């Protein structure tokens, strides 16, 4: 275990953590306000990736294939357009599917979310929409090695993910803790009825929450697609990514912005470092590598058993 190797793994870990954090924030925001697990969130992530592909190819930036790279301004444009489209999608879904169930038992909302998820997956698979063939958007970003410092390769993608995540998380923190809308969001999260009595328009707050969460999910989806290519069609194969991000949100303390980021880092730490060091220690036992998902869900169960409100969450006392 050399020093530069450790540093390289750390950079990788930060990039993966950022990716999970972007997706986990959407889960945590929605749970904080509406107290339900938005199972359709992972589909917003996959739609984000595929909408980015659609936008980029419509603009002709992917026409030349792998050989030619898109201009430098292409990625920010695609990112902004996709985030806007996904935000609109999130708001529409909330308006049509979740709002009529605001007062219904939570299990109903959950099933509705699963219905929305199935709907998005199967619409996405239609040939007229995204089709069922894998694709790539790697032409949008030249993933060159920027610099080599002491044997550590700094790649553009890793830097972009880390910087973008930091910026978006800080912006989100500023919105939630520093603006009027953020205060309204926290008020609704605390007590929806009292907040509405105090003059907060709950519907607007919920819409804004969904817009923010979905925009972040779109960013996460694009970064994931840049990192791993768009090998996964817009179907149920994204559910595991969503589940892991959701685990991150729960482990950190669901409903808590910083908790989601911390949980994402923890999950990424387990994935990346265990993959690099523990699995390498057992070269003759290939099944050790597949235990990764077990660690993630094992952490989840342990955290929930000993601190059900998550690492950074506040314990809620139950009233009789």
């Amino acid at each position: 275990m050399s020093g530069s190797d450790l540093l390289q793994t750390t950079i990788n870990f930060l990039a993966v953590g950022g990716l999970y954090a972007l997706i986990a924030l959407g889960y945590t925001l929605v749970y904080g306000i509406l107290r339900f697990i938005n199972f359709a969130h992972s589909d917003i992530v996959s739609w984000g990736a595929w909408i980015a592909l659609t936008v980029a190819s419509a603009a002709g930036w992917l026409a030349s294939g792998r050989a030619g790279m898109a201009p430098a301004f292409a990625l920010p444009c695609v990112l902004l357009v996709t985030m806007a489209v996904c935000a609109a999608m999130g708001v529409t879904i909330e308006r049509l599917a979740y709002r009529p169930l605001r007062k219904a038992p939570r299990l109903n909302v959950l099933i509705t979310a699963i219905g929305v998820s199935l709907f998005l997956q199967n619409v996405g698979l239609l040939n007229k929409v995204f089709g069922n063939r894998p694709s790539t958007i790697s032409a949008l970003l030249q993933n060159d090695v920027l610099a080599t410092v002491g044997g550590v390769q700094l790649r553009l993608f890793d830097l972009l993910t880390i910087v973008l995540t930091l910026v978006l998380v800080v912006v989100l923190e500023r919105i939630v803790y520093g603006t009027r809308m953020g205060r309204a969001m926290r008020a609704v999260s605390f007590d929806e009825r009292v907040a509405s009595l105090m003059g907060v328009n709950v519907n607007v707050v919920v819409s804004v929450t969904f817009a923010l969460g979905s925009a972040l999910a779109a960013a996460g989806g694009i970064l994931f697609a840049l990192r791993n290519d768009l090998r996964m069609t817009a179907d149920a194969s994204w559910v595991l990514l969503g589940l892991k991000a959701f685990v991150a949100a729960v482990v950190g303390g669901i409903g808590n912005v910083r908790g989601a980021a911390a949980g994402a880092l923890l999950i990424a730490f387990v994935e990346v470092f265990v993959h690099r060091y523990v699995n390498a220690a057992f070269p003759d036992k290939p099944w050790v590598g597949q235990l990764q998902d077990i660690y993630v869900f094992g952490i989840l169960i342990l955290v929930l058993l000993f601190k059900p409100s998550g690492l950074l969450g506040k314990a809620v006392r139950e009233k009789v």
Partner: protein
Amino acid sequence: MKGLQERVAALRPALAPAVGKSLLPFAVAVLLAFVMDKIIGPGVGATWSKILLDVGIAILLAGSLNVINGYAGQFSIGHAGFMLVGGYAAAWLTFYGSVHWFGTKEPVGGFLGNGQLLFLAGCMLAGVIASVFGLVVGLPTLRLRGDYLAIVTLGFGEIVRVLGQITARQPKNVAAIKERTMWDLANNLGGAEGFSQVPGYTTLFFVYLFAFVLLVLVYRLKYSSQGRALLAVRENEIAAEAMGVDTTRVKVVAFVFGAFFAGIGGSLYAHQVGALDPKELGFMKSIDLVIIVVIGGMGSITGVVLGAAILVILPEVFRQFADYRMIAYALALILVMILRPQGIMGVKELWETSLWRRLVAKVKR
């Protein structure tokens, strides 16, 4: 004035009628299963008897989930994990056992012959092992409620799936299997490729035998003091505890009971499909079962039977619409949740609805 003990003794029914009365529904269950197998199955043709098999297995699985979700109110989305555990246990016993004791991988024996008895033993083993897992999953319910419990059950389901995927390769050569003991083969469950060539023992008889037995048991449970304790926990756990219900015990028992029949369901599934793929029995399968329970009506036995029948048969009927079928299904799911959030039956049973009462009154007149 007679003593208290004598009065109690006078009220107690004689042994023979009591045993007879308690066993009668199970005898009827065997009879009905036999009718399903010998008359209805051949009568409706191959395609429909396959669909009937799926419906029966769905009734068994959703009915057992209903005890956990509907009666006890403990939201579980890891039911497929119990299925997988049970399926592995039974497939291990029938596949390797068949080779060891009968010398072939194919099903042997006729109705209730050696092969089918081995299969029955496999189903029981599946139930027992799955209920041990149910105990393990039920214990966290001491600390967790609502969504958090759901997430733990989800995590359990995923962990079982991954554990299934890392098991060792499945030897398929008869001679190679005979060289090793059964115990030695316990880890050879096929890994990521799944356990294949499971002998196809599942018939309508076994599916509906277990399904009817489950229905009799859950009916009796619902109208017993144990069942009322479960419903009390669902409605208000703190109030139930204040009334003297041992909430911990009740919840764990619900999980163990549900897991037992889910394990049997997994065994029937494996021996029907002929293979056990851990990827198939993951999160989405658990969700399918939850959907059946919610659409049917949480806590309603007849509701779950209806829900299972509808959700298995409709997709088969609309198979020709391939791509658009699932979209319509998703939309229907959302619409049902918005327009009829309590499901088809709500918490009522069929015989408790006003429509049924009116029908019965009309028939009686």
